[in-house]
């Protein structure tokens, strides 16, 4: 009986909300249609010559209701290169629908906002480098040359922002681990450690993804406030390595070992530019001693950056980034051969140059990653031209140069590609 009255109350509450909303309904629709084609500029024995051939239509709807805001943003995709167009996987974005956002945003109390559902999450200070941002990334989209927004993959999470007087707190709880859309060999060839060579579609990485609701969960938290004009932040993450970082010696599958990250950052103005710094300690909890060859070592990561305008409509940003392996000797001891071993320190320098021309309708940018320790380079030129308020053309290249096949960017040397895109936004 109690149950029934509870149900009735719930139904009447719902109808009350619906009838209230019928008067307040206020939806904005936007979106775009984007066609993109790309090809490799050299032969890749393990991949298709075509790197991109797809059309996507994004529909973005935002509905203002009295109690909350509802956002739905989905891409309908025709991908001529998809291996199985019938398959739909909202987690990996495979198939004809890629649901980017589906969430409600509400303010339960004055000092808090909550966003519940599928959403894109970002934080941290790096420019295309991430230390404390452990939200899922889509590395395939990034290296294949889709729009930069596709580097961020969606999370299914509850995101609570609290605003007490002493600062701001964000907590993202993901009940089921959201892995990166990692490089698995199906679209991009990579260094395969087991085979000791570059591989691709011949050796697609099989993984064992932690996928139990509320057990294989992730929590990411940030506390930030202004300190003497600088935005200072502390971070915590508990979850898993976001891309494969280990292997199960029995099944041979790649794994996502447990990971905790503790970090901090600061960002602010210095002279006429913006200076930023960030650090993080990656505690690879399944390999606390560093000697487990099947689990990635713990790491200390650091970055520092500075960006400013060099001339009108011409800006530059430079970053230094370090990945330091905590137990390098133990790591070396665990390897059957040290021939393809990673260095104790991976140093990376990035440079972004952006030039805006023709009333900012033509934007030329070049982002360069250079690692003096790995002896490899990733060049990412992008040119966009806005024909008018609706049409936009994009040309992009992704070029990988490396002395060795096993380094982070060097392994992608057969994936050099150029692509062209045309987008109509409405």
């Amino acid at each position: 009986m109690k149950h029934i009255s509870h149900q009735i109350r719930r139904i009447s509450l719902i109808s009350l909300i619906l009838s209230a909303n019928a008067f307040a309904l206020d939806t904005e629709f936007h979106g775009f249609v984007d066609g993109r084609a790309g090809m490799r500029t050299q032969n890749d024995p393990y991949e298709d010559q075509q790197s991109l051939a797809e059309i996507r239509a994004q529909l973005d709807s935002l509905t203002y209701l009295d109690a909350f805001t509802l956002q739905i943003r989905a891409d309908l995709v025709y991908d001529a290169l998809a291996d199985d167009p019938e398959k739909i996987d909202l987690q990996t974005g495979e198939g004809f629908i890629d649901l980017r956002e589906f969430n409600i945003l509400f303010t339960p109390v004055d000092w808090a906002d909550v966003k519940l559902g599928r959403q894109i999450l970002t934080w941290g200070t790096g420019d295309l480098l991430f230390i404390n941002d452990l939200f899922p990334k889509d590395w395939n989209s990034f290296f294949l040359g889709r729009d930069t927004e596709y580097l961020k993959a969606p999370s299914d999470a509850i995101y609570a922002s609290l605003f007490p007087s002493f600062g701001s707190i964000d907590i993202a709880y993901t009940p089921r681990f959201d892995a990166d859309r990692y490089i698995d060999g199906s679209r991009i060839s990579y260094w395969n450690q087991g085979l000791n060579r570059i591989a691709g579609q011949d050796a697609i990485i099989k993984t064992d993804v932690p996928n139990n609701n509320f057990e294989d969960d992730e929590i990411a938290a940030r506390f930030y406030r202004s300190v003497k004009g600088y935005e200072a932040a502390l971070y915590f993450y508990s979850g898993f390595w976001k891309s494969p970082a280990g292997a199960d010696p029995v099944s041979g599958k790649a794994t996502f070992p447990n990971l905790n990250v503790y970090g901090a950052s600061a960002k602010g103005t210095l002279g006429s530019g913006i200076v930023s710094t960030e650090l993080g300690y990656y505690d690879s909890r399944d390999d606390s001693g560093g000697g487990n060859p099947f689990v990635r070592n713990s790491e200390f990561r650091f970055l520092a950056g500075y960006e400013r305008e060099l001339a009108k409509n011409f800006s530059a940003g430079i970053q230094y980034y370090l990945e330091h392996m905590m137990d390098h000797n133990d790591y070396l001891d665990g390897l059957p051969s040290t021939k393809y071993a990673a260095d104790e320190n991976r140093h990376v320098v990035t440079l972004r140059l952006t030039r805006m021309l023709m009333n900012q309708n033509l934007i030329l940018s070049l982002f360069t990653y250079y690692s003096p320790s790995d002896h490899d380079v990733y060049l990412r030129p992008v040119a966009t031209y806005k024909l008018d308020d609706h049409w936009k053309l994009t040309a992009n290249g992704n070029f990988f140069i490396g002395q060795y096949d096993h380094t982070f960017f060097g392994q992608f040397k057969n994936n050099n590609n150029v692509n062209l895109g045309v987008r109509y936004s409405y």
Partner: protein
Amino acid sequence: MKTGIIAALLLGLTTGANAELSVDEIVTKANEAAYYAGSDGRADVTMNIVDKSGSTRTREFTLLRMNTKGGSQKFYVYFKKPADLYKQAYIVWKEVDENKEDSRWLWLPALNLNKRIAPGEKRTSFVGSDFVYEDVSGRNLKEDTHELVETTATQYVVKNTPRNPGDVEFSYYTVMIDKDTFLPRKAEYFDKNGKLYRTVEATKVETIQGFPTVIESVVKDLNTGGSTINTFSKIEYNIGLKEASFEERFLRRPPREVTR
């Protein structure tokens, strides 16, 4: 400067009480009339950017402004059009102290990214228009020296020369200020060779809630042949904005004042 003072004195004898104002008082009053009306305000802005061939691009945004302590101000810009700028938001904390830089943030909704903008970019075009960022929030009076070069029956003409000429693309600019309302009506910018290359003009003015308000302004770039027309509508003053609305929280969750 000296001739300016003499001119002001001479004109002061003939034009009555207002002319006794010093040039600093004039530019201060003009700055207040142009950027500080009420304790806060909002407006919808339609920006038509016309290039020399006549093709037009349109931006629509809602602008919030709030006066804070000691002449500082906060601005919130929320874009509605074109589609590729939809939901982008932009916050400025304008500082008037000489040793303090403005703070500016841009919200990129597709990336859920809050991007801090370098303070050096003040003289860069605002979203591809002929307006620069500094036109939106106002140029700090302390950046220039001011000289009253002419007083007509209805206007003051003030010449403004930058203290740091290396920071800007002009060598000086003159501003014509209405005597009755103190609204700046036209600014003319001269390049390093003394040639007029840019004008900013308040082409329509109305009194709203007692405040003389520019409801249409036009900037012309004489070098490129381009122009931008700003039309302001739904202007309201003293709407009771809270300073908290200009924090990062409200980049993620735009306040009702801009979305409706």
